[in-house]
Structures are given as structure tokens and as C-alpha cells.
């Protein structure tokens, strides 16, 4: 696989100025809604602190809580499976489906199954998989990955959806009225729910002391998918565990407010066993997560509750779009997760950030995102992954800066020469700064020169 290139993909997205601004404004609107919702709760910062503490404690005792969860879930008749990686996860899911002779599956949004590439795996085996979250269904029709973890089709306008639905569902190509399109999708999905032999859902929280899982949706599609078919498979990463039912209240108060500015998701569904005459399975996946636990610099990334707030606030994400990250989870948290997993493949992601720090402040579980991205950059250097050109330029700069005299001389020369050079030569193709920006005017003397001369009148 060739190395992913965020700047290149970002350039493509930014070049469509109208769409880029539309995207930026749509997400900023969500961020503002989040601000209002979070500021309506006086104890907001305390909640973030509690959430951070619960998650950190759970991750430090993960083996204990996973076993407690397994024991309690099993008591409820739920079949619990553990998978070490994506391949094992997909095989477990397939084997359950095969055993029940499943031909059609309805799926409720799950970033984990995206991460494991479950859909193409099952489709190859002849099983129809229908994503039932509206945004997910839209991108599935278009054979695109989601571009945001909460708003998977945020990169598309309603006119794009009208075209897609016209092609797939036979709706009027020129009618992009959201109600009209939603009705068409609902009718289409209703049929899929009724036909399905099994429902696959993600998991937002798995509660160790009850052995149940909680799924948050706004469309109720997880409930439809898990209660119409007799077979329900819930797929989760190991980090979804929380110790006790009472801990859940902290997270449900933070999750929806951070994600969309809603006080709570429309549906917060608790699953503590199969429906009557049905069967419920939970597949718990590691897929390289345990490695985070041994890394002091990056372990907090596992605390993420997938609200997407860091994406909505990130000024780079808003302007470069989710697809520019080339990873299942985009934005600041995705950049850290991806770089930790495969630094070489994702080497541009920790630099897809101006280190503004807004993500760390917005994060409901206080993940130190900007510090992680700063640290990733240093690690890439250690691992010899950053370019030789950059390495040489930086070493040379330090060499110059180590000598105050040399630095002053170079500064003086630059200030003298630059004003004499014709603009055409200054603004050459290697001057990236100068493509869309003027260079600063050169003063005759530096501060140091003026200070040494004693010519600064401080009166």
C-alpha cells in the first residue's frame, strides 16, 4: 500500500472553495450546538474529569473488568467471544451467521466493523449487509467510507444524496427535499429490516457489573435491527468496558452533548440478553488495542468514547474533510490512533494539525490529543520516518542558531538582499510561503542591532 498523503488529499478538498466552506460551516454549527449544550451544565468540567478518571481506572484494570463482563453476560445467556484481530473477528461473525444460515444482515453503525472491513468480507461470502444508519446507508450506496464517525455523510450535500437515491432507489433526481429523501430511505430500510435474518450492532458502552451493552442511536435503527431478526451480534473493542451501571450516567450526559449538542441521544438502548426465542452474541476485539495500554504517551487514546467532538472543532478537519485522513477514524483522535498503529503508512497525519489544542479542550474524556500528535512527530523522527530533506534542513537550522554571531550575520544579509531581488525571483515555485502570501517587509536593522547601538529611545 502506498503511503497516505494528507496534504495532497486536503488540497483536493480545499480547492472546491464553496464545498469546503459549506463543510466547515456545517461542522462549526455542530460545535456551537455542543458549546451551548455543555454550558447548560454547571458541572460540565467535573463530568469530564470523572469520565477521564473512570476510563483511566478501567483501562488500568481492563483484564479484571473484561472477565467480570464475560461472566455476567454469560449468566444472562449471551454468548461472548474474544477475537485477537480483525480477521478473527470477521470469522467469528461469519461462523455465527453460517450456523444460522443467514443470508441477509442489517447493521447498525459500528466503526469497529468498519475498522475490521466486515462488510466486504461478508459480501464475498454471499451475505447481503445493509447499513441502516441513514448516513451510513448513503455512503454504502456510493461505495465510500464514512467521512466522520458520527456524521458519516457530512461531506455530501442534499443534492448529492438526491442523485444517489435516484440511482439506487428510483427517487426524483431533482428533488433534494430532506423529508422526501428521508421518507424514501425509511421505506427502503423498513423492507430490509423485515427481510433480515440477523442484526449486527456496535456497542457504545459495555457494563462489567451487569453484563449488558448500551447502544446510542438517533434513528432507532439498532433497536429495529436487534429486535426484528432473532439473531443479534454486538461487536465491540476491548476499550468499551465501563465498570458499573452508575458510571454510565456520566458518559451518556457527555456523549450526545459533545457529539451533536443534544441532551441525550434519541435512543439509548440497553441490551441485557436475547429477545424471546432469539440468540445474542457479543464479539470483543483487541485488534492492536492492548498495545496502547503499554504506552504511557498514547494510552489515553483508548479512553475515546467516539463522540466526534474533536473532528467538529478541528480547524484542519473542517477544511480538509474526513476522507483526507485515509483512516477509519479521521480527525485528531484518528490521527493519533492511525499513527500509533502504522506510523509509516500514516506519517503525514500527526502533521495534519496546527497544534491549536482545541481538540484536547473539547474532548469529554480529556484525551491529551495535541500532546499526542506532538509526541508522534518526535517518534517519527526517532524511527527515521520523516524525510531526509527535512532532517537536513532542521539540523542546519540548529547549527546556525547555535551561533548568535552566525545567525546575526545571516539575518543581516537576508534583510539587505531580499529587498533588492526582483519579485519574480523571490516568488519562485520553491517558495511555498509566497504562493498565496506576501513575505514580510524587511526592516533595515534588527532589534539586536538597534539595542547594541543604544539607539532605542525608551522614554
Amino acid at each position: 500500500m502506498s503511503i497516505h498523503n494528507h496534504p495532497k488529499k486536503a488540497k483536493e478538498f480545499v480547492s472546491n472553495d464553496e464545498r469546503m466552506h459549506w463543510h466547515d460551516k456545517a461542522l462549526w454549527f455542530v460545535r456551537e450546538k455542543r458549546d451551548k449544550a455543555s454550558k447548560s451544565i454547571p458541572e460540565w468540567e467535573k463530568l469530564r474529569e470523572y469520565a477521564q478518571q473512570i476510563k483511566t481506572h478501567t483501562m488500568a484494570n481492563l483484564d479484571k473488568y473484561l472477565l467480570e463482563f464475560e461472566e455476567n453476560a454469560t449468566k444472562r445467556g449471551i454468548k461472548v467471544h474474544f477475537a485477537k484481530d480483525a480477521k478473527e473477528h470477521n470469522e467469528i461473525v461469519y461462523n455465527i451467521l453460517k450456523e444460522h444460515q443467514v443470508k441477509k444482515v442489517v447493521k447498525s453503525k459500528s466503526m469497529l466493523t468498519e475498522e475490521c472491513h466486515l462488510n466486504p468480507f461478508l459480501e464475498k461470502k454471499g451475505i447481503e449487509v445493509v447499513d441502516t444508519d441513514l448516513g451510513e446507508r448513503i455512503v454504502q450506496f456510493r461505495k465510500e467510507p464514512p467521512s466522520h464517525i458520527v456524521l458519516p455523510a457530512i461531506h455530501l450535500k442534499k443534492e448529492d444524496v438526491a442523485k444517489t437515491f435516484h440511482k439506487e432507489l428510483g427517487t426524483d433526481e431533482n428533488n433534494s427535499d430532506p423529508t422526501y429523501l428521508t421518507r424514501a430511505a425509511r421505506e427502503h430500510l423498513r423492507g430490509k429490516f423485515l427481510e433480515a435474518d440477523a442484526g449486527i450492532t456496535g456497542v457504545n458502552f459495555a457494563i462489567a457489573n451487569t453484563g449488558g451493552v448500551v447502544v446510542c442511536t438517533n434513528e432507532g435503527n439498532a433497536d429495529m435491527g436487534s429486535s426484528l431478526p432473532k439473531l443479534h451480534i454486538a461487536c465491540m473493542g476491548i476499550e468499551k468496558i465501563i465498570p458499573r451501571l452508575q458510571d454510565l450516567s456520566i458518559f451518556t450526559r457527555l456523549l450526545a452533548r459533545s457529539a451533536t449538542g443534544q441532551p441525550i441521544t434519541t435512543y439509548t438502548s440497553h441490551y441485557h440478553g436475547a429477545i424471546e426465542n432469539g440468540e445474542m452474541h457479543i464479539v470483543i476485539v483487541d485488534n492492536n488495542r492492548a498495545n496502547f495500554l503499554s504506552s504511557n504517551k498514547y494510552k489515553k487514546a483508548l479512553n475515546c468514547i467516539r463522540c466526534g467532538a474533536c473532528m467538529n472543532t478541528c480547524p484542519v478537519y473542517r477544511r480538509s474533510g474526513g476522507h483526507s485522513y485515509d483512516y477509519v477514524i479521521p480527525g485528531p483522535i484518528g490521527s493519533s490512533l492511525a499513527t500509533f498503529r502504522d506510523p509509516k503508512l500514516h506519517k503525514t497525519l500527526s502533521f495534519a494539525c496546527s497544534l491549536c489544542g482545541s481538540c484536547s479542550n473539547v474532548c469529554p474524556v480529556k484525551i491529551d490529543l495535541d500532546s499526542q500528535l506532538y509526541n508522534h512527530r518526535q517518534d517519527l523522527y526517532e524511527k527515521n520516518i520523516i524525510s531526509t530533506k527535512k532532517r537536513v534542513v532542521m539540523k542546519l537550522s540548529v547549527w546556525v542558531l547555535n551561533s548568535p554571531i552566525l545567525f546575526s550575520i545571516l539575518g543581516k544579509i537576508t534583510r539587505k538582499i531580499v529587498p533588492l531581488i526582483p519579485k519574480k525571483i523571490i516568488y519562485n515555485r520553491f517558495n511555498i510561503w509566497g504562493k498565496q502570501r506576501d513575505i514580510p517587509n524587511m526592516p533595515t536593522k534588527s532589534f539586536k542591532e538597534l539595542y547594541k547601538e543604544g539607539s532605542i529611545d525608551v522614554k
Partner: protein
Amino acid sequence: MKIGLFIPCFMNELYPKSCIATLKLLKSLNLDVEYPEEQTCCGQPMANAGCAKDIKTLAYKFVSTFSKYDYIVAPSGSCVTMVKEHYKDFFHEDDEEYNKTKTSIYEICEFLHDIMKITKLDVKFPYKVGLHNSCHGHRALKLGTASELNIPYNNKLRNLLNLVEGIEIVDLKREDECCGFGGTFCVTQEDVSVAMGKDRINDHLDSYAQFITGADMSCLMHLEGIINRDKSPLKVVHITEILAGEVQ
């Protein structure tokens, strides 16, 4: 009380006016200020580019140059953040010199606001001004309350500007959005960087600002570069120049 004036490398070379304003502000408070001539750069551009290892020598040089002062004051929130936050990897946690440097370094507005606690400035600036809250100063040094947090609002830069006679600070739609400079980010991600800068400028234009000011010249340099290229009707000025009464 002896103050060591720390002037960021590029400001020394390109923006002597803002450096002079900084010196004047400190001198106007009858402080004993010295500019150590052996200083160069804190190493931030290299560290942000991933080459923190290379700047160890610069960090040592910085600490040996500045640890003798009671306070170190600089007209740049991001350079101060570099010393405060990122030098710790190079020093032992008990290193007295570094710990002294780390705790005595201040961004100029922070110093005027928190240490000198100034309540009066005898200067005028009868213009509409937009305040650009640069990220490092704003969020890392907490010069102002980040809009993401649910804590009581405060903004040290705004408080200081409010001491200036005739000034009108305009309200921006996005109070603390990043301008897109971000060190080497402005070159490695030129397209997003410029898009961010343009949006930042438009927010000021939409609010009828005549000037953009802020406490980080690097952000202002990036914004000024776009303003001059696009011939926007906005002027850029470092906050020290307004506070020192250096611009009319």
C-alpha cells in the same frame, strides 16, 4: 528585580518595532530590563517539525542564558510555551536552573496582567480592533478562557486592551479559532493553512475591524502575508505596540 528580555528569533530580525514596544512597556514600569545578546531561538520550529532531539543544545543555551534573571519576559506566547512545556524532556526533573527558568518565564501580557497587575495605561488607540487569540498563548498559557471550556470567562489580552483609551474591540464570530500558521504547518499544509488564515481575516472584516492584533507575531505575520497579497483593508499590529502607544 532583574528582567531578562527574550525576543523570538524572527521577531528580532523582522519585527524590531514590536520588540522595541515590548522593551518600552517594561521600562515604563521602571523595571531593570536586560536583553542578553547571546540569545538566538527557543527551537520551537524544529521541535514542532518532529526534531526536538536536535534542539537540546538550544534548550541548554537558553537556560544558561536566562536562568539568572528574576523574570524572563517575551512578546510571544508560543515561544514561552515551548520553554515551559517542551524543554522538560531535556532536563532532569530536579534541575534547578531549568525549574527556575520554567517558572519565571512569562508572556509579556501575562506579565503585565498577573505580575505587575497594571490598571492604567496612558495611551490612546481610537480604532476598531479585532483580537486574535493565538492558540498556544490562549490554550496552553491560558491567557484567555478557551471557548470549549465551561469555566468563567476571562481574557488577559482583552483586559489590557480595555485600558487603552478610545479602543473598540469588535466581537468575532469565532473568538479563538486557529489562524492556520502552526509553525511548519503553514508550509507543509499550505492549502489548509491559507484557507484558515483567509477565514480568520474574513471574520475580522465582517466585524468591521480596522486592525487585527494579538500576542503572537508568527500568527500575525501569516495573516499579514495574506492581507497584503489580497490587498484587504486591514492592518496588523502586535499588541505590545498598541499597549506602548507606538501606533497612531
